């Protein structure tokens, strides 16, 4: 600061001196003034002279002393130079240079104000007026038209710049008024003829021409404001350089802050090289590893290493011993663990047993032989148990527990007891059921005998009779059974009896019918009487009871087993497939009604069988189930018998029957033969096949079909009605004007007057409005169309924005912006990344440094980021479509 001040002071003095010049060139007052300022003149002038002619300057040493001191740091090497040289030397034109060097803000006014103050402090009282005058004089050149008042005013503003107190060099007023004022010319005169005089004169003249009146320094606040303004402008200018960078970043669809930094050593080698031992162990290792000797040995060759590697015999022995010990320990440990592995808990064994059982049962399911064996085994066990009654609670243990009381026992014992009781209960139940099944199996086995052995027609009738008998018996049983409850009531009994009778009648009539359709042939009844189920059931039961017809039943068993494994359909198929040829003949013989029923029964039976099959688990439970089935569901079995008998009937040899068939019946059979061979099964089950097929069937036309299909309902009328309803709903019909009934005499008046006219008018206008609205509807002229004009409902309302979102100016642009989907399903993989890229890509854990300046060419096409692609950013796109292309930029950070 001090330096600059000095400079400026120097500068100021120079200016002052220069300002003298015009006065010298001018005549009169102005010239006088210049002279009056004489005392200061030498100072300034001396400098000039000093520069040009140092010898002259030498004379007034003392005056220049401070000046010299000032000059010292400005022009350091001037002093050191010999005078002759400095004389020629014009290279240091200090004033000019300074002028260029100084920045704008170092204004003259600023610093010279110090001088002003000085002047004021020192010589204000005396020299005030003179100075003002002088200033006036200076300004004359500038503003000749100014009045005295104006001048006075101006004077107040003008700051006096007089650095020296009154003295002989700073003359008073009378001196100034006097004629004998000095001019620069006068002072220069003595130099005339000397070396450099002409030069000096020329310079002075030039200065005179150039100089302008000096401005008075401004008040401090104003000055400061100006300074600040200048500084602000400057700093604004500085900040401007950031504009392109910021603009680019703002416009970029994505800015990246995740530049791949060097996050440390990447290779194993670098990591290893930077490893420093920290723990004791590591240090020890390091001391061994980086032992000088070892390192040297490594560097040279292996021989030294070998030397170093020598181990003493004792050490080796020790080592071997240790190893042996470890081995033996390991071996023992292994043995022990093996032993432990073999010891197993009770639960383990129980579970194992269960698993084994399960596996067995599974096997039995798969393999008939195994299952048979299993069944035998179970039967044996059952028998054994029945004999010993082991689980009845007669054991010593159980008795003791009973004695002590069950409540006292712990949970485990109680559970065991319960289990035993359960087992016993199961066993007893089994015994009962076994008895039943035994009888039934006997029955059925008898049946079976008959069934298989006799294949004549009588068999059928026999069966029929048997069935009848059984039904009757059942009915009787039914009569007998209910002895208590609702069914035991007399009227219920009656009703039951009646029902039974009805059933019987029905049955008989049905049988007759059969007889008729079968051409009076008693054989036709056969199918309903025969039961395949017997054939199936028998083997199971017989096997269980070890009945004598085991050989045969084995066959059947195999059959039924395979059946029970399968689903409903396969069963039917296999069965039907088996008897297909027979069936055809048979079916022809049977009336459709019968067949239908038959097939239904069939299905039922299959279903039952199937359920049985699925329930049937090998093992004790399975047999139990089967036996239950045998005993408890007698009626069901009977049904099944009926059905299966039917199926079985088909098994009977076809040729025999076909012979007896009528000619008339045979024809359709042939038809059937033609088309049904392959697809008969499914149809058989459904009973569709039985519908009599028409030989010549023509497809009706589409229209006809539709008419037939919709014969009953009047679609058009309905549509009309719905349309009307909708119309009424959307444009409701105006209500008819109604009067509130009056009372007393008002009723009469009301009646007379009728509906008031305004109501009528209102009503009419509303009606008209409605009609117009109806006419204006989009579907007014479309007879078969309803176009709803309801206000959009709330749900669809959610799919619209209430107003256009902010950056967008038109609806189209907004819609365009959300037109293209973003997802990976709708875009190729190469596009998805670019479409979904967020605005700021950063990595957590990466420090983001503030922006750093870099030159940006606003017009250059930035080379895209490696991940670049099109990013559809709405607000940008709406503004400028072209801009949003590949504007990917990478932020440079410090």
């Amino acid at each position, binding site marked *: 600061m001090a330096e600059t001040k000095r400079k400026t002071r120097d500068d100021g003095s120079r200016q002052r001196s220069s300002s003298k010049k015009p006065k010298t060139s001018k005549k009169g007052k102005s010239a006088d003034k210049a002279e009056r300022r004489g005392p200061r003149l030498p100072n300034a002038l001396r400098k000039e002279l000093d520069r040009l002619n140092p010898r002259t300057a030498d004379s007034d040493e003392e005056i220049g002393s401070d000046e010299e001191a000032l000059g010292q740091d400005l022009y350091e090497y001037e002093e050191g130079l010999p005078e002759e040289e400095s004389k020629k030397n014009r290279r240091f034109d200090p004033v000019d240079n300074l002028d260029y060097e100084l920045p704008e803000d170092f204004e003259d006014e600023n610093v010279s104000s110090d001088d002003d103050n000085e002047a004021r402090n020192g010589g204000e009282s005396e020299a005030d007026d003179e100075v003002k005058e002088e200033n006036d004089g200076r300004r004359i050149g500038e503003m000749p038209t100014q009045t005295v008042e104006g001048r006075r005013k101006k004077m107040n503003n003008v700051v006096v710049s007089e650095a020296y107190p009154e003295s002989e060099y700073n003359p008073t007023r009378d001196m100034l008024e006097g004629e004998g004022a000095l001019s620069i010319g006068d002072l220069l005169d003595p130099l005339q003829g000397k070396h450099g005089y002409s030069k000096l004169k020329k310079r002075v003249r030039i200065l005179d021409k150039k100089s302008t009146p000096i401005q008075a320094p401004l008040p401090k606040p104003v000055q400061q404001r100006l300074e600040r303004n200048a500084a602000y402008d400057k*700093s604004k200018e*500085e900040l401007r350089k950031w504009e392109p960078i910021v603009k680019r970043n703002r416009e970029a669809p994505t800015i990246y802050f995740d530049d791949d930094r060097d996050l440390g050593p990447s290779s194993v080698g670098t990591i290893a090289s930077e490893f420093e031992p920290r723990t004791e162990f590591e240090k020890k290792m390091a001391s061994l590893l980086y032992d000088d000797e070892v390192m040297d040995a490594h560097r040279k060759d292996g021989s030294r290493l070998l030397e170093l590697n020598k181990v003493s015999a004792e050490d080796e022995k020790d080592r071997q011993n240790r190893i042996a010990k470890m081995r033996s320990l390991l071996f023992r440990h292994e043995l022990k663990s093996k032993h432990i592995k073999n010891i197993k808990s009770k639960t383990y064994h129980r579970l194992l047993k269960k698993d084994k059982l399960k596996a067995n049962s599974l096997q039995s399911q798969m393999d008939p032989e195994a299952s048979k064996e299993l069944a035998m085994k179970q039967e044996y066990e059952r028998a054994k148990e029945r004999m010993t009654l082991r689980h009845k609670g007669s054991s010593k243990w159980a008795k003791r527990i009973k004695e002590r009381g069950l409540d006292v026992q712990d949970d485990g014992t109680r559970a065991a007891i319960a289990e035993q009781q359960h087992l016993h209960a199961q066993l007893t139940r089994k015994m009962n059921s076994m008895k039943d099944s035994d009888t039934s199996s006997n029955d059925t086995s008898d049946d079976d005998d008959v069934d298989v052995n006799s294949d004549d027609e009588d068999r059928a009738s026999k069966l029929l009779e048997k069935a009848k008998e059984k039904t009757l018996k059942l009915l009787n049983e039914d009569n007998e059974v209910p002895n208590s409850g609702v069914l035991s009531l007399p009227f219920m009994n009656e009703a039951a009896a009646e029902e039974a009778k009805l059933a019987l009648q029905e049955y008989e009539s049905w049988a007759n019918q059969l007889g008729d359709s079968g051409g009076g042939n008693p054989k036709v009844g056969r199918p309903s009487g025969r039961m395949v189920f017997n054939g199936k059931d028998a083997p199971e039961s017989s096997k269980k009871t070890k009945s004598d017809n085991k050989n045969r039943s084995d066959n059947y068993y195999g059959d039924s087993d395979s059946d029970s494994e399968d689903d409903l359909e396969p069963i039917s198929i296999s069965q039907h497939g088996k008897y297909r040829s027979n069936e055809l003949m048979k079916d022809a013989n049977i009336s459709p009604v019968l067949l239908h029923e038959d097939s239904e029964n069939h299905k039922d039976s299959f279903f039952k069988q199937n359920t049985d099959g699925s329930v049937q688990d090998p093992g004790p439970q399975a047999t139990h189930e089967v036996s239950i089935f045998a005993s408890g569901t007698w009626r069901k079995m009977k049904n099944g018998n009926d059905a299966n008998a039917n199926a079985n009937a088909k098994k009977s040899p076809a040729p025999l029957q076909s012979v007896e068939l009528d000619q008339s019946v045979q024809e359709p059979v042939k038809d059937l033969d033609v088309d049904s061979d392959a697809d008969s099964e499914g149809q058989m089950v459904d009973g569709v096949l039985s519908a009599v097929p028409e030989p010549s069937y023509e497809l009706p036309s589409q229209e006809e079909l539709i008419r037939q299909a919709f014969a009953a309902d009047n679609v058009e009328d309905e549509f009309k009605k719905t349309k009307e309803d909708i119309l009424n709903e959307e444009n409701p019909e105006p209500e008819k004007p109604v009067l509130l009934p009056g009372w007393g005499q008002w009723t009469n008046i009301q009646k007379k007057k009728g509906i008031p006219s305004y109501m009528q008018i209102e009503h009419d206008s509303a009606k008209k409005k409605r009609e117009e609205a109806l006419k204006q509807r989009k579907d007014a002229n479309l007879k078969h169309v309803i176009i709803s004009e309801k206000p959009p409902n709330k749900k669809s309302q959610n799919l619209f924005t209430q107003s256009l979102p902010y950056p967008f100016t038109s609806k189209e642009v907004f819609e365009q912006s959300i037109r293209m989907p973003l997802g*990976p399903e709708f875009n190729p993989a190469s596009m998805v990344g670019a479409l*979904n890229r967020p605005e700021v890509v950063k990595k957590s*854990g990466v420090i983001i440094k503030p922006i750093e300046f870099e030159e940006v060419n606003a017009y250059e096409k930035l080379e895209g980021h490696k991940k670049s692609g099109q990013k559809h950013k709405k607000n940008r796109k709406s503004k400028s479509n072209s801009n949003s292309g590949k504007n990917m930029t990478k932020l440079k950070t*410090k």
Partner: protein
Amino acid sequence: MKVKVISRSTDEHTKERSQDLQRVFHNYDPAIRPQEKAVEYVRALNAAKLDKIFAKPFVGAMDGHIDAISCMAKNMNHLVGIFSGSMDGDIRHWDIASRRTVHQFPGHQGAVRGLAVSTDGRVLVSCGTDCSVRLWAVPISTAMELDVSSDKSVEPLETYVWKNAFRSVDHQWNFDRFATGGAGVDIWNHNRSAPEQSLEWGTDTVISVRFNPGQPDLLATSASDRSIALYDLRMGKPTAKLIMATKTNSICWNPMEPFNFTAANEDCNCYSFDSRKLNAATCVHKDHVSAVMDIDYSPTGREFVTGSYDRTVRIFQYNGGHSREIYHTKRMQRVFCVKFSCDASYVISGSDDTNLRLWKAKASEQLGVLLPREKKRHEYHEAVKNRYKHLPEVKRIVRHRHLPKPIYKATGLRRTMIEAERRREEKRKAHSAPGSITSKPLRQRRIVRVEE
């Protein structure tokens, strides 16, 4: 006869390795996907809902101070370190990862009002009401040494006592200088016991000082005479001054846009300014219901965090009029200082309840390492949500926040007041001669004058 057969190249349909994903071929014809928009809308809705479900911004609290936290400073070189100063003169260095105090810097006699860290992260500068500026060497510590070091306290490098109490301090970017604000603005050097330079404009106390990180010679201050002043150190002069209707509590420069700064004002709003045009704010950020106490920009320059006297922390977009996020907890009291972490993914707030709180900058962000596919999924969700953000349902879900009751009520009250004011203005305008009453836009309304 020509027979058309489907032919496929084996190269495209075989996986090179067993881990490879099976390539799926798509037909991108929009005609066969008429529902794409509907699908994406639903996805956007779901994404918005998921965001709400996963929005758990509070990571943890750091307690240890025994008085209100007055200031914080982040270490620009060290991600997990943060310094906090409290009203009882305690300064602590925290490890954010473990949320523990690593070091303590005892010495201040009164409240610590300003903290700043040098750019290289070696020197911590603190100043306070005890008229002293202290420089501390930041001990370099790794996680390993944390447990071992028993003596956590650090001795100051230097202590410079000056004439007046200090209110704030900030360090210049990349240089050795720092500026303190108090009775005036003083520019200090690390190596000198007296300020290098003292800047003054007006006589009021300077409340906050901030250096411009992009243009390190620029300095912005706010003072208690409701002014915001700019200084240029190259010229050693103040450059511009702006007087607002209310005091500005804190100032922050945008690190990515060196001519923009945002001022946290006492009137519940933040004002973003272009430092070259101070006669109008570029954006007014409204939402707080009480004085905004502190503000800090995210290093990305795209958002900033504010802490307010209304006990909430909010995150704003740099150009958004309303906050993107509000954070609050039951126990958090008046927030006096906030900072964005250097990687822009966390926010730290210091409050009256002597705790520092660590928040996620994005409330529903999944922490930890993400698989590329996860990342893609998140990006897609974000993009879809962004696309349909204008639709009412999505907007509703995205904007919905549970607020503490007092804040909710205060918001409502503020809204009514503003609305009433607006109506009054409108009526006044309607009932007076046209042109006689002019209303300033909001961006200029609170600016009293710009001084030169």
